[in-house]
């Protein structure tokens, strides 16, 4: 009797292992990064495979001692053909020169990540073809910088320069480079080069003199000199008669550099260029905080947002935007906000906005170190 039972089980297991194995017969494993061949050509059938499996594939290459990586989303692919993804990268005086081997447009947006060998201490950068801006560049990376560019149209050659190096009027329009369908009329980009300078006339916030040495009662470390002091939400008086504008953007390009850590269920949520909300001019009323405006913007645009009130910091905490939550891409991941190039060291409900400020919500996978946050925790 026992023998019969055992043999029955063994046959069953054998049968099951056959059915389990029969599904996998592909030659190219899309889950691992693929090293580009010498000539950089990616064949049509590989792209078709990415498209059919709706996979996210990465191709890595090297030019000199600079590594680069292409991330291609299967959902973005339509008509495919052989494409040449190899690049020639050269460091110039101020930035990086990129020469594409491909001559025609790719026909789909692909994310190009250039891994520099040192840290580039700039907030943002733009790629220029001569004097016209072609791509806007998002900078991530902890110890060494990673330049993320969403490439759709191919130019023969371009130079990536930090944003404060060029005059603002030649900055690119977001629509063309980021391939964004919405907000064509009210998008505005990177006019932020002179933001560090002055205090606006209609700004009655208190600025830090940098003399404080202790934490305040909500555990906030001294605010650096010249930065606005927090305004407690209960003291904020919203004056609906006075309305100003500021620029809001939400992006998560760091996830694209850390796709291996991402919760697999969340993969399809990540936009292929990392942009959830392209820089958008929004109206706000005097006295409103970053949190108030974020909540309104997300509601208007139908972007999912979850926050929770944290009494010890007297501020709302942003748990997730666009269903991308804290800890979804590694233990050190979550949402941070930057106003005029500075990551405030207090919560977004305590940051009172002033006219013309540029607010960027960025997803970090490394406690802010990969999105250009300075200093230690």
């Amino acid at each position, binding site marked *: *009797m026992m023998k019969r*039972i055992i043999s*029955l*089980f063994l046959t*069953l*297991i054998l049968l*099951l292992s056959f*059915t*389990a194995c029969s599904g996998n017969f592909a030659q190219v494993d899309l889950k691992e990064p693929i090293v580009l061949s010498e000539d950089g050509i990616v064949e049509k059938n590989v792209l078709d495979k990415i498209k059919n499996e709706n996979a996210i594939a990465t191709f890595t290459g090297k030019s000199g001692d600079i590594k680069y990586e292409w991330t291609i989303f299967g959902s973005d692919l339509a008509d495919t053909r052989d494409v040449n993804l190899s690049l020639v990268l050269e460091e110039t005086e101020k930035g990086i020169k990129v020469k594409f081997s491909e001559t025609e447009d790719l026909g789909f947006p692909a994310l190009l990540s250039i891994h520099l060998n040192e840290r580039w201490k700039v907030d943002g950068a733009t790629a220029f073809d001569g004097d016209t801006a072609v791509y806007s560049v998002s900078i991530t990376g902890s110890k060494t910088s990673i330049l993320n560019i969403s490439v759709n149209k191919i130019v023969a050659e371009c130079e990536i320069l930090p944003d404060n190096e060029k005059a603002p009027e030649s900055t690119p329009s977001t629509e063309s480079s980021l391939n964004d369908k919405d907000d064509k009329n009210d998008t505005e980009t990177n006019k932020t080069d002179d933001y560090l300078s002055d205090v606006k006339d209609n700004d009655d916030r208190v600025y830090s003199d940098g003399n404080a040495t202790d934490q305040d009662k909500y555990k906030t470390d001294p605010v650096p000199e010249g930065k606005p002091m927090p305004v407690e939400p209960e003291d904020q008086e919203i004056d609906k008669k006075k309305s100003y504008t500021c620029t809001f953007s939400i992006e998560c390009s760091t996830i694209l550099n850390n796709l291996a850590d991402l919760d697999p*269920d*969340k993969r399809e*949520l990540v936009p292929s260029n990392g942009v959830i909300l392209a820089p958008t001019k929004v109206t706000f009323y005097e006295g409103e905080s970053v949190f108030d405006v974020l*909540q309104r913007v997300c*509601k208007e645009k*139908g972007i*999912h*947002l*979850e*926050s929770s*009130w944290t009494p010890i910091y007297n501020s709302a905490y942003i748990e*997730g935007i666009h*269903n991308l*939550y804290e800890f979804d891409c590694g233990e050190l991941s979550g949402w941070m906000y930057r106003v005029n190039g500075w990551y405030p060291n207090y919560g977004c409900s305590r940051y009172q906005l002033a006219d013309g400020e540029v607010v960027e919500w960025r997803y970090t996978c490394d406690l802010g170190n990969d999105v250009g946050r300075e200093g230690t925790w």
Partner: protein
Amino acid sequence: MIRDSFSEYHPFNNFLYFALVIGFSLALNHPLAQGIALVCACTYAISIDGKKSVLFLLKYCLPMVILTAFINPAFNHEGTTILLYFSNGNPLTLESILYGFSAGVMLVTLLLWFSSFNRVMTSDKFIYLFGKVIPALSLVLSMSLRFVPKFKAQMSTVTEAQRSIGRDVSNGSLWQRTKTAILIFSIMITWALENAIETADSMKSRGYGQKGRTAFSIYRFDERDQYTLIWLGFCGLFLLSGTLLSAFGFRYFPNVRYAALDMTTIPFYCVYFALCITPVVLNIKEERKWKTLVSKM
């Protein structure tokens, strides 16, 4: 109500059955699988307990499912389908409601399975199965499983004894009643601690858990138990492989995605249903046999 003949099977089969159904009820969150488990758990509980469990279902289980479906979205705002916004700005999402509903169904299913488990797996069966392998743990388990009903019985005894000497919890001023209640509670705690020590000492003095100790048992592993074991083992392995091949795959967040119902996945659901309904089928079979035997006489 029919006699539960499944509880007359070998304890190992009883235990294996409950281990499987409880395990799969916990692991599978596909609504169809959950529905199958819920229906079978209800049927079995009703076939064992009759009216009492119908009442339990309507009185506690139904509100519990509705409650979790309402409570979950209040704390969980994940999900891509935004229905409306709460006053604090967080969204109410369809996914969180569905998840709350599914969690409620799972909770009720488990409650029903455990109520049947307590009926079928009496403490003597439990000790018989695990007394030799894990003596200390199985004694603790069986004692703690028995604790609540025993405590309740002792409680009423003590209350009545106290009432007979004039210390009634329903009599006197609030202060007096509280005093009496505290006194009864203190008696109960003392009793419980002492009883536990006594039980442990008593078992020790009988050589419980010692090597070479034999135990009297009335359980025989006969032919029908062999067939049942093969059946349960087959179901367990088949469903385990189905889970590994994600035939029961279902996710609620960030948006609902599930494994399609087709020729490759439907057999797994059929087997799951067959596994869960096994004791009810055995009971009906036994009942029929009994009736035919009766009519022949």
